[in-house]
């Protein structure tokens, strides 16, 4: 296991559409200050943003942990929320339980989870109905994925 060089924790609040997206902005400036490859930064920002918006839309609150080793970036979102009863469907593009209100705001088109997986080199999702969901995304630092 590679040694962890840096770890940061961010709290994300459910239903906070006003501040939704701020965590991924912070993550972007942190990764940029580390002079990482812009392509990797963009993928990590998309992963963080989609995970953040999932919490904003569906959960009560979430904790995003960003950790960096000299081999990869790991983004883990651990939320307290309703959980996902049908994980297989949730991973399909276009599958969504978003309300009309969320769609009007430009979210909930069923692209979030597939988008996270597409931008990750390693992806894991565990969910327990009534408790919450944990999403783990890993992006390798040397490869393009």
């Amino acid at each position, binding site marked *: 296991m590679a040694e962890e*060089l*840096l770890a940061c924790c961010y709290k994300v609040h459910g239903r906070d559409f006003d501040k939704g*997206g701020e965590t*991924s*902005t912070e993550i*972007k400036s*942190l990764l940029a*200050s*580390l*002079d*990482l490859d*812009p*392509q990797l*930064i*963009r993928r990590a*920002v*998309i992963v963080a*943003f*989609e995970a953040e918006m999932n919490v904003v839309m569906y959960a009560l609150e979430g904790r995003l942990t960003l950790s*960096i080793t*000299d081999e990869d970036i790991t983004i883990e979102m651990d939320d307290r929320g309703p959980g996902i009863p049908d994980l297989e469907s949730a991973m399909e593009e276009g599958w969504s339980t978003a309300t009309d209100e969320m769609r009007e705001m*430009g979210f909930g088109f069923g692209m979030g989870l597939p*988008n996270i997986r597409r931008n990750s080199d390693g992806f894991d999702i565990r969910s327990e109905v009534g408790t919450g969901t944990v999403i783990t995304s890993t992006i390798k*630092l040397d490869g393009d994925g």
Partner: protein
Amino acid sequence: MAEYAHGFRLDEGLCDGCLACMRVCPTMAIRVKHGKALVLPELCIDCGSCLKACPQGAFTATTRTLEEFDRFAYKVAIPSPVLFGQFPLDVRPEHIAQGLLAVGFDAVWDYGVEMRLVTRAIVDYVEKWRGPRPVISITCPVVVRLLQVSYPRMLEQLIGVHPPREIAGREIKRRYSQELGLAPDQIAAIYVTPCQARTISIMQPAEGGRSYLDGSVGIPQLYNTVLAEAREAATSAPPGGDWDPVRSAVMLRWSTRRPLADLLKRQRYMSVTGLPNVIRVFDDIEKGKLKDIDFLECNACWGGCSNGNLTVDNVYVSQAKLQSLMRDLPDADPQTEAEVARRYPHEDYFTERAPEPRTRVVVGDLRERVRRVKEAERIAAALPGLDCGLCGAPSCAVLAHDAAAGEAEMSDCVFISRRRLEELRRLHHDHAT
């Protein structure tokens, strides 16, 4: 490290270290060391904010004078549409064209044709584009440089269509060399520019290679003489008798706030002006938002090119004048449309390659970079967080970053050390009293 040429000069003798430029620089590319401004070239995007902000006039735009083009046998003006909104309303576009001829140009180019040609090419490009959306306009050189410096992964979204001024330059060389029997390099295609950023995009195109244009002259450099000559033309020449460079609203619309809104009817279109707004929209795009916009027009200057730093009139006044001119003009004119129909199929409008990202200066391995970021965080925690700028860096975070990289001292902060305060007193107290 690559050398980046920029569209301005800094006269160190005039700079009194007042911090005004450092405070307005949107990419935090300026530090003030030992009482003098210092520009970090790899971060500068040529927006010209420092030129406007400097009370001493220490920054000057590096445009040319018309006399510098005297080595060419034939000089052709390509007037930015912004020019036509800079004069009193009774001075009509045809008088301004005569003014340009009187100050030394041999011809004034019929630039509305390229606007229409390029609009057609943009519509074609956007309809065929299968990459990530939105497609981003390439007309504002500052926006292109902002992408190169801060959003390199979005460079592929820049539209691969030359701006109209480049197509005009190419056609000018072709047509006049044929008509006059001159070599293309004896003909100067000169852009009359509302900003110094256009100048640098001609001297050093972002996509590499060479511009079709030979240079540019800023509007203020020509203004007084063109105004006098145009007034003369307005009183002596019979109305409607001379060639009119602005026959339809097409050309003037390019210098308004939403230039292509009416022309790109089928595409979902958005226009953003002002660098802070552009940066916010680019941040959103980077997160994967705004995918339902097809074409995004961005101007670094608030209100569009009429607010460029080489203009004479206030942006609101000149926009009102352009609106008034447009009201009297048809949407299209047969002469322009015929020329567009003739030329469009025979010319190539698409660029060969996208601009490259600015080379990143990566110092040290990841471990070392993490150490610096942690060190910067530690330093930042000890700084007041007021961003007063007295240390010579635009914010506490930037000072912390510079100090962690060994390029500044934590003791540059006036809250941390009296040494800095005394240095500032020495530098500034004398001329304050």
